[in-house]
């Protein structure tokens, strides 16, 4: 199956969680995934359950787990914190 390369950026507690699993250090990494993967597949790959991901952007636009990914996409994941 053909592969695509996407950039993943994660922040604060998602970054901390992934770091605990020893995957990435600075919140940014490139991942090779099968073509026709969706954002949700990437989230599953990172072992993040629903209560960890509150906001997704792809190429700086809000997105959803169902969004199909293309080569070169930049995916950002944010946990569901709010301001006060």
């Amino acid at each position, binding site marked *: 199956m053909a592969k695509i390369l996407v950039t993943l950026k994660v*922040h*604060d*507690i998602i*970054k*901390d*969680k992934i770091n605990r699993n020893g995957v990435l250090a600075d919140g940014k990494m490139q991942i090779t995934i099968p073509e026709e993967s969706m954002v949700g597949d990437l989230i599953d790959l990172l072992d993040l359950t629903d*209560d*960890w991901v*509150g*906001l997704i*952007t792809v190429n*700086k*636009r*809000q997105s*959803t787990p169902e969004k199909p990914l293309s080569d070169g996409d930049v995916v*950002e994941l*944010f*946990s*569901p*914190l*709010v*301001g*006060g």
Partner: protein
Amino acid sequence: MSKILRVNLTENKITSEPVPEKYLKLGGRALTAQVLTDEIDPACEPLGRHNKLVIATGLLSGSYLSSSSRLSIGGKSPLTGGIKEANAGGTAATALSKLGIKMIIIEGESKTGYSQYLYVNKDGAELRPAEMAGLGVYHSAKLFFERYGEKVSPILIGPAGEKGYYSAGITNTDPQGRPSRFCGRGGLGAVMGVKGLKAVIIDPADAPGVEYQDRPAFQELNKEMAKMLKENPVTGEGYPKYGTAAMATRTNALHALPTRNFSEGSFEYADKIDGEYLYKTIKARGGEGSTTHACMTGCMIRCSNVYADSDGKEVVAPIEYETIGLLGANCGIGNLDDIARLNYLCNDLGVDTIEIGVAVGVAMDQGVIPFGDAEAAYDLISEIADDTIMGKVLAQGALITGKVLGSRRIPVVKGQAMAAYDPRGIKGLGVTYATSPMGADHTAGSTARAQVEHTDPGPQVELSKKMQAFSMFADSMGLCLFVLAAFAPHLDKLAKLLEYYSGIKSSEQELLAGAAAALKTEREFNLRAGIGPAHDRIPEFMTEEPIPGIDSVFDVPHEELQKIAE
């Protein structure tokens, strides 16, 4: 909690009253709404003698439950002209609960010609001359602690409130005595100030303490609730480490971080003012700084912080997202040290950092000072203390500042400045701003963490309606909104806790119905005050001027907004 303290400043008379049956099941914001509806003419002058200030505890106030003792203060707002409630953490609500006081109603206006404070302890209450009149809140609080000991809880205003400025809030102290837990919004500090009241000192020494209907059952269920908070990633990890400042990365990504007077929704220095940067800065500097801090005793979330300078000396505690957004990005200021200094200055004057952040942004937009000039912003805000004309204008909030300076880009609804969420990037919050009886207030129903397409106008009214009810629910229980991240699916358990605490039997459905009824009470108050559906509008520039990056305008139709009240 068995009594109401009524303080009539006109007659210099203090009475203790039993809590009427109709108020027993009401707390916090819902209680203030009902009392104001029952006792004042909604058409009254907000800064006149007929307005009242209601200082209320929530239904779970004083209990063991984490984050359950927020202080609610209600009155008619000089900013919105409508009903207002603002709440904060801190220690005062717990102290009131220990004394068995459900609320304090402050009415009339002093004829003494000098400023007073109210001292409340187990034996009663007394009005005393406030020789600290005119002083900032930090110095004033210090004097009160010196006089009455470190265990008292001062509820107080700064010089802005004493002068009746519309941006004035009312603060109370954190467990370490910092007077930085503000019931900030709506200008309620001015309502207190014009009554000639500088402070209310709650002294819980030798107080009878709170009573439980069923303490063992409460404790058992409370353990389960504590576990939920600990295991939830948001309340157990996110807030304790990064605090509310983490919101900056999210709003920046959504193009909803107000930047340079709401002309942009993302800020080039967002990563220098966000939660991660704040955490790293505080951690690296050490000294008196702390990356986590509880604003009230027993809070497990500990989202607050203590910000220290490069020498490790405390500058301000806490720095919160709204202040970062509005005194920071909205003013083009991308440096936490600058924001911390501005934050302290606003606190000491006793003004709302949201209202002043927006007012300064408007002034910058009109060329009074340049965007990004933190020194000029400091000097401008300092003019509030100096009583210059510009200082007086600024202190009256964003709307008056904008009108005086000839701006047509004033980000307010019902006279009150927007919080740090651009309604073109997060339209659900725009719906809340437009329709809440509170005016533009994010705490009245934040949709920011909902998993919807935030620029799609379609789902926002229903979403805002739901969140407005949730907010009223939390504000009435005395709960911090942040616990809802873990507790929202378990409101039935909160109902049980209420029963074990106070004997009030209710269900999740009844509590939410009560919240909806309280919102209706607020809307009816506003209608009688002359504020109706015609005022449920986002400023015109936000419906026509797209936010860069996503080309989004606020486009939820006005007729759709009216479904909120159905």
